[in-house]
């Protein structure tokens, strides 16, 4: 059973294996460890940008409430559902040691809310998982780099 995220702890990408790129209306996330690509669209883009700023689940919900025209419960449910999925996919973790950034203020006119859309692509998964990899530091095998 996955542990639920601490809603008040700052969030971040789970490890150095997680790479992401924000385009205009879509975020591409690659998890090299599992070999899976993810695409986030609609309000999922806003959520990912806030995660990059180390916002907590609570702050993300508040920030989306300021930006989008929808009942608070609808936004909270959509945010929780997305964050649970990202955490279950080992893309994000809560990290109480981080400082939270302040989300940028909402627009004067709220935009219509569209729930986050997540798509996953597993095309390279089989290829990536074929080979055992041993990451080593300058001292060589079996000395592995400190976990980031």
């Amino acid at each position, binding site marked *: 059973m996955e542990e639920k995220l601490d809603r008040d702890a700052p969030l971040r990408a789970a490890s150095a294996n997680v*790479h992401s790129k924000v*385009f*205009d209306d879509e975020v591409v996330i690659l998890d090299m460890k599992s070999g899976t690509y993810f*695409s986030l669209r609609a309000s999922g883009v806003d959520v990912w940008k806030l995660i990059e700023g180390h916002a907590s689940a609570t702050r993300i919900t508040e920030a989306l409430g300021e930006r989008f025209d929808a009942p608070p419960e609808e936004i909270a449910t959509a945010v929780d559902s997305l964050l649970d999925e990202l955490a279950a996919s080992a893309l994000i973790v809560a990290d109480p040691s981080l400082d939270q950034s302040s989300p940028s203020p909402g627009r004067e006119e709220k935009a219509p809310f569209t729930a986050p859309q997540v798509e996953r692509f597993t095309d390279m998964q089989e290829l990536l998982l074929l080979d055992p990899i041993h990451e080593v*530091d300058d001292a*060589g095998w079996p000395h592995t780099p400190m976990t980031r």
Partner: protein
Amino acid sequence: MGPQSSSEAARATVSVADAVARNRAAFEEAARGRERVLDFEVLGRTVRLRLAGDSLERDLTDALRHHALPAGASEPELEICAWDRHSTGVEPDLRGVPALGEEDPGKSLIHSPRTIVHGPNGFVTVQGTVPWAAQGFDAGRRAAFLWASEPSVLGAWGERTKPFLEILHAWLIDSPWQPIHGGAVGSPDGGVLLAGGPGAGKSTTVLSCVRAGWLYAGDDYLAVRTSDGEAFAANLYGSARLCVDMAERFSELRPAEIGAVSMNGIEKRDMILSEVLPPARFGAFPIRAILLPRIAGGSRSALRPASAAEASVAIGASTMHLLRVGASAAFEKITALAGTVPVHRLDLGEDIDALPELIGSEIGVGSE
């Protein structure tokens, strides 16, 4: 030297630089009295290949020969030593490199367990729990090695059509260039990059444009870079891979065929295009658009808009699994490229001879 047990491996310590240096020393022994030196120009830089005799020369240089330089004309920026056990009797020195994984008789040669050690300054890989190939790269010395148990394993491994791909990738990590899986055709003024998984129609599109006189930058692997808001494609290899059912439609390329491979149930013909194209037809050019082909059926091909994210996934999904070092840099370069130029889906119909005109008129690129 035989394979190690996992407990021996766990006790061993090896640095990538030491492992590469020891194997280059093994090469010196293998090459004594029969060394061959060949220089190539790769992305404007000299790469020197040192061979122990001529047993690996064909398999390792067929796809690079159109980049050949007079040997010794300039100092190399990368030196690769290559030898095989069959002709020299010399083993690689894999002491301390862990050999993990179990042999699986049901798997093909290319899927044999592979052990990889990589660090901040290079990598060493070993193919098979009983090693049948190994390679490594030391970024500090810009030095690499490649060993094969016998020449025939290079073809099964895919090295004949994309020799030294992992070494070249590791060598280019700190440069603007990134080797990717894809195709590119155009003219000195601009061209298109084609991306997608096996069987998507990249090669069909590329070769239909080559037939129409376009410059060829690549069909399977090529290099790309992005700078100052412009993206560029450049040729690495003179090789191409075409689905066997399409090979009949490109009968003029038959003299270039060197063999067949089966990947994910799709049979493909390997070709060395320098057999049928002059060196001037291989080149580099600005990328004006990324096309994501797919076999759509129907009579006519068509272009429709797609997103930078789709392009990132299409390029990355078939590229990143090969690039076991520098993943972060590769991801940055690939996504930067995808965000720089327009992206289109290319729905491929039966009219493959019309593709050069369609792409040329819609994207504004084409032959000289």
